[in-house]
Each structure stands twice: as C-alpha cells, then as structure tokens.
C-alpha cells in the first residue's frame, strides 16, 4: 500500500514540478486585466478611506460589503454567461420579477417563506433555461433573446403592479437582506448578505475549477474546438444562463430586505453587472477572465461611487460614470489584449524546456 501511495506522491510531485509555482501564477495573473482590478480596488479603498477615515472602520467596511453583495453576486452570475461568449440582459428584470413574487406570494405568512423561496429558485432556473435554449438551439443571439426576456418580464411586472409598490413580505424573509449575526467582536455585526456573498463566491470559485467551469471557458474561447472535444456546447451555455438567473434571484432576495418591494428594484442591474464583469477584465466574447475578478469589479465600482459621493459628486452622475467606465474598460482590455498578441514573441521566447524529461536524460537540458 505504501508503495502505491509513494508512486501517487511522486506523480503529484512530477506534476507540480512541471507547473508554475503559485507565486509565479499570482504575479502573471496580476499583470492581466483580471488581476489588475484587485489593485484598482485596493487603490480606490485607500482613496475612500483617505477622503473619509471613518469608512475604514471594520464595522463600516463590513456593512459596505453587505450593501455591495447583491451586485457582486449578480456580477458573478453574469460572469458565467460572458465568459461563455454570451450576454444576459434579462438579469435586472429577473431581480424585479423575483422581488414582485416575494412581495405578493409571501405576504405576512411566515410559513410561506420556504415554499416561495423554492418557487423563486425554480422560476429563476426556468428563465435561464429559456434564455439558454433559445440562444443555443434556435441560434438567436443572446443579446436579442435576453433583451426580449428583459422587456417581457418587466412588462408583466408593470402590468401586475400598475407600476406601484405592492405587497410586503413577512419580516422573517426581509431579515435575509437586512439582518445579520449580531454581537460579533470588532465587526459588531456580520450581515447575512456578506455570508451569502462569501458562500456564492466560494461556490463559483469551486465550480470554475471543476470540469464544468473549465469546459465553460473553453467553449467561450473556441466553441468549435470545444464541440469537437465532445462538449455539449448548448447545454454548457444553457447552464451558464441558468446560473446567471439564479444569481439574479439571490440578489433579488437580498434586495427585498433593504430596498423593499417596488418595480424599480433591479432596474439597470444587468448593466451594472456587465460593467462590473468588464471592469474585472473579463473579455466580452468569452474565454478569458477570472470569476472573482468579476466580483472585485463590482466592489471597485461601488467603491468608486462611494468615493464620488464623499467628494460631493451628485449621485445623478452615476449612470454617466458607469457608461464611461464600461467603454474605457472594454477599450483598455482590447488594447492590452492586442499588445499581448503583438508582443507574443516575448512569450514565445521565454525560457522553455522539455516537459517532464525522463530522469536518464535529465542532464540533457535544451536551453532557450
């Protein structure tokens, strides 16, 4: 037994020797737009704290994370779709629809919270399924499919509500968005949205390391090649749309907590999520970018808005700022990308060597 364990150990060791070290990978990642967003986020945080030192207090920071959680979760959902080479514009309307469902079906009855939660997840998955199947099987560009879905859902909600706030879910449900674990040392409170965000991010990170996640990126990079490796491209992409709608559902559940029930909740969420993803260095068209960078993009965006707020810029500028960011971020990513390609020779001529040379010819190093 120990022999096979040894052999196993050796095989892992050989594998490790032929991969980049964790430090190298981190350094290389930081040089990509997907890594750069973390540096941007840190710089913005420092700027905000400089403008308003009280923002840097732990309790204040954790509340900020809680406030940003829904958009960060939505950005993670949007990431799955964008990295597979598609768009999900229906996200904001899914949030609105879910807020409406929660507000009207739960009412004051605590006993209905769990069944309605279940229904909301089924509804979210269903919307994603429709988006995905129409995009992949009927070959309608996802831009159009999800735009149609966005308008259809919004229209239904507006019809049902007459455009006004209706319904008010039980307080136990609203606690998901506004409550938290109290009496925590240092932080005072850990809001539930923070916990939901951490769990979502961890799950997303795990999923992107699974065969599904790697296949999703491969599909976004080159769907023809992925299809020829046996990937069911339609199903891989459809699941990404379902993940996106489900994350919009989670965002909606949190938003009911502090935003309440109104047809305007969730409006513009798709664009904020796309801006966050793009700011996270995820390439539109797919195949590049890291899932946590999308979340970091959301935090960077919200931090920027906080900074502008502290600097006395009126919040009505928010849309304009977001619009400029989305253009600049896409342009910057395209430039970096082209520069990388033009400078491709630099990588070609990095020191290379035979992969896993057998020990007997280990001395026969082929240099550059």
């Amino acid at each position: 037994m120990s022999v096979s364990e040894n052999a196993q150990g050796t095989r892992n060791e050989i594998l490790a020797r032929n991969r980049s070290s964790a430090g190298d990978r981190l350094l290389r990642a930081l040089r990509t737009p997907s890594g750069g967003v973390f540096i941007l986020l840190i710089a913005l945080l420092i700027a905000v704290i400089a403008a308003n030192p009280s923002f840097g207090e732990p309790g204040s920071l954790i509340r900020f994370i809680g406030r940003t959680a829904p958009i960060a979760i939505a950005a993670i959902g949007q990431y799955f779709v964008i990295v597979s080479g598609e768009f999900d514009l229906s996200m904001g309307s899914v949030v609105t629809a879910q807020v409406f469902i929660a507000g009207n079906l739960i009412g004051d009855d605590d006993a209905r919270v769990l069944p309605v939660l279940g229904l909301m997840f089924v509804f979210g998955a269903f919307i994603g399924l429709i988006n995905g199947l129409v995009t992949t099987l009927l070959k309608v560009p996802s831009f159009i499919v999800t735009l149609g879905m966005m308008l259809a859902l919004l229209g239904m909600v507006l019809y049902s509500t007459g455009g006004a706030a209706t319904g008010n879910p039980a307080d136990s449900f609203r606690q998901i968005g506004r409550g938290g674990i109290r009496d925590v040392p240092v932080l005072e409170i850990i809001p539930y949205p923070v916990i939901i965000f951490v769990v979502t991010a961890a799950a997303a990170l795990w999923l992107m390391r699974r065969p599904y996640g790697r296949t999703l990126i491969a599909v976004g990079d080159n769907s023809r090649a992925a299809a020829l490796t046996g990937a069911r491209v339609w199903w891989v992409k459809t699941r990404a749309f379902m993940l996106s709608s489900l994350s919009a559902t989670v965002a909606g559940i949190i938003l009911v907590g502090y935003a309440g029930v109104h047809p305007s909740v969730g409006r513009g969420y798709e664009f904020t999520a796309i801006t966050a993803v793009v700011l996270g260095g995820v390439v539109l068209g797919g195949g590049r970018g890291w899932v946590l960078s999308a979340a970091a993009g959301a935090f960077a965006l919200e931090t920027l808005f906080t900074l502008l707020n502290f600097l006395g810029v009126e919040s009505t500028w928010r849309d304009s700022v977001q619009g400029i960011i989305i253009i600049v971020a896409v342009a910057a990513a395209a430039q970096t990308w082209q520069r990388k390609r033009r400078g491709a020779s630099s990588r070609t001529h990095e020191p290379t060597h035979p992969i896993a040379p057998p020990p007997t010819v280990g001395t026969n190093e082929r240099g550059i």
Partner: protein
Amino acid sequence: MDKEVFPLESRVNTPVVLSVSGLSKSFFGIEVLKDVSLELRSGEVHGLVGENGAGKSTLMKLLAGVHHRDSGTIELSGAPVDFSHPTQAHEAGLSTVFQEFNLLPDRTVAENIYLGREPRSGILVNRKAMLERTRELLDQLGITSIQPSTPVSNLSVAQQQIVEIAKAVSYDARIISMDEPTAALAGPEVELLYSIIGRLKERGVAILYVSHRLKEIFDLCDTITVLKDGEVVGSQPASSMDDASLVRLMVGRPISAYFPEVTPGTIIGEPLLEVADAGNEQLDSINLALRTGEIVGIAGLQGSGRTELVEAIFGAAPFTRGSMRLAGEAYTARSTRTAIQHRVALITEDRKSQGLSLNQSILDNALSVIRSVFPGRTNQARQDAPGVFSSLEVIARDLDQEVQYLSGGNQQKVVLAKWLAISPRLVLLDEPTRGIDVGAKVAVYNLMRALAAEGKAILMVSSELPEVLGMSDRVLVMRDGLIAGELSPTSTEEEVLQLATGARTEETPS
C-alpha cells in the same frame, strides 16, 4: 510536378535585387535573428527553410516592414532601405504573401486586389478598369479558374491563396516573399502555383520561398538558405543538396529514417471499424474496413471528401445512410460526444480554429476531452499529463503556459496529448503534420507507429503524398465524395494522382 517542367537556368549572373547583411532582431532581450545575411538575385527562387521558431517568419516580417530590425542593413538593388510600415515595402517593390489571408470575404477578387488603390475616374472608382486590370493580371499569371468579379467568399481556400499571390504581384513587385504558400493547396493547385512561380521567374522577379515541404523546395528553388535558432547555418545552390543533407542542417542532427519503420511486434488484427454503404450530402457509397494495428492513408484532392469522411466517422457531420460497426458492434456516430464515448479520436485539420483553445493553458487543453466527456477521470488524467508530454517531447515553459505561445509543432503535440488521454481505439488524423517542423513531424510519425503497435487503428488524411505512401499500410484515394480506389504503399505518387484526378479511370486500359 517534375523538376524538368521548368528548366532552371543558371541565374548566377543576374543582378542582386535584395541584399541583407548582418540582420539582427531581439524581442525583449532574446535574440531571434542573429547576424543573418542573404542575397536574392533577379529571377531566382530562394528557399528559406528551418524548423518552427528558427526565425523565418521574423525575417520575412523585417523585410515586409512589419517589424523593425535592431541592426544590419537591407538593400534593394544596392540602395539601402529602412521600412517602418508595410506600405513602404510595397511601394519599393517588395511584396509578402503571409500565411494568414488578408482578404475581405464579401468583396470581389478585383476589389480585394486593388483595395485602397482602386483605379479612379474622377472621384469614383472605375470598376470597369479595375476588372480589366485584374483580368490582365490573372491572365499574365496563367490563372483561368478565377473570375475578377467573383466574391472572395465563393472561392475555395486554395483559390484565395492564389488571389493573395496575385495581389502581391499586382504591386509590380520585384521581390515576393511567400510564407508556406502551399499549406492550403493540393494537387493541381500546387501545379498552378508552380506555373505562376515559373512565370514570375521569367519576368525576373526574385522569390523568397518559405516551406516545410522539402519536395517543393527542391522542385522550385535555385538556392536554399537554412536557418537554425536565428542563424544562417547554410546557404547553397539547391543542386548541391539532397533531402538528407537539408534535414541534417535544419535539425542539426541526422534523422536516420524520415518515416519510421513499422514497430516490431505490430500485428494487423481483426477489423475494428467497418463502414458499409454509408453516405451523406458530401459522401456516397463509402465502404471500408480498418483493422487493429493498421494505418490506412486517405489521399485525394482538396474537396474530394477526405475531411468529410473522417468527420462522418467522428460524428461531426454524420452519415445519413449506411451503417458502421466498431469492434463488431453497431456504431452510430450521432455526435462527436458519442464517438468519443466509443473512444474514437479526431485530430482536426486546422489546429488553431478547431483543435485548441488558444487562450487556455497547455494543461487545460490537454484535459479538455476528459473534462467534457469523462469528467470523473480528470484527476487521473492530470497526473498522467507530465508523462504524456514527456513522451511527446513537448518543449514549453511549463504546463501553465498558454498554447497560443507555443510553436506549431508543440501545439500539435498538445492536440495529440488531449486525445491520448482517452486511450482511443480508433485515431482519425486529418493533415497531422501540416505546418509543423521536421522534428515534430517525426514525433507524430513515431507516435502513429507506437499506437499501431498497441493495436489501435489509424486513419490518416494527408495532402503530402510521400507521407501517405511512407506511413500507410494501405492507401484509399478519394474523388468527388467516393472512394475511387485502393492502392498499396508501394504505388507511385503518379498512380495516386491519376486516381485522385480521375485520369486513370478515363483512360481505360488500352
């Protein structure tokens, strides 16, 4: 395609039109070209060979003004030049035909050729003059199969390549450099290219010709310059070299057997794949049996249905009639996924657009098939990866390097590795050695022999006849979606071509 078709006069006395000396170029501190010198004479075809990464492309790009040299001089007919933009090179009479096409698919042949310098009458484009000039140009080159008014998207890949060459000629170029112009060509199109080059020579144009196909180099070139690791390791008249000496210069070591012998102990066994009366829109009446341990080559012209045949067996473009059996059991390749579940592998013709996710790492690419179809085996395959890459002799920074930064040969090995991960029973190879260097070619051949020895069945499509004849146990020749006939590997290239072009069936035995 015989050498005698275009008698090569001695051109030693023609004037030097391009003289390069002491050319060096570094990218980020690493020297890619070191002190390269060469001379091109008017009417000379000058072969530039070397393994991938030897610096051929960089040299061409320096000449074309795409990159700028670090040191050295480039002289055109004795006058030093210093291009900072490709347009300047064109204006000076130096045109380049790159491997990647630069054509607008929805524009006509004439519009593509005269893009940006259309003949005008007043402020409007004079379409009539443009079409006439294009017609004249094509006539001069002996191209009758392409009409100036045809949209480029209606042309075959081979015809597009010809348009690219015509475009280069249209600049009144005195020097044309061509990067693997035959990579997309087969049979008669290669002959057309030969005749175009013959005509250009007569007009005194000097041609710098990059190719991996040694036969072409010897057929066409007057002088051969060999690059290795950025340096010129030899520059001699073609007549003073042969295959063996050229390969030795390129790789720096003799390659004892270009096509390795059958591995001892290889047994051709039971039929593994049987196809009966199968067909679809492109194929008809396909009958074939492929046995374990056997390598069967498929020859034929571009568009004869070779690629379609392997794609049908692989389920990428399935048969709509007929039946297949795999290891005695009914096998219906409805999709690529079903094929892979039956452990059938297809190494596609175009590795960049069909074989690889270029932005992903070597490891991710190598695991892609396993992850899509057998996700439960991912960890096992990941641990196997170093061994597989070691046996394929892949050279890279490490397994986390993105495949776009690898040379063609190493990229092809990554494609092979991802298929080896499923331990395929049937391996379909479509142009497995296109655009890769000699060393990598030999590695592919060795792998094919090793797989055959393990009892796998191999079906290989190739446009390179020496490869088909050198590697196969049997050769199937395709024509117009049918299997036109079967030949033994001892047949000559002429016999294969006769079958492929239909020359043989038409001239019934006298």
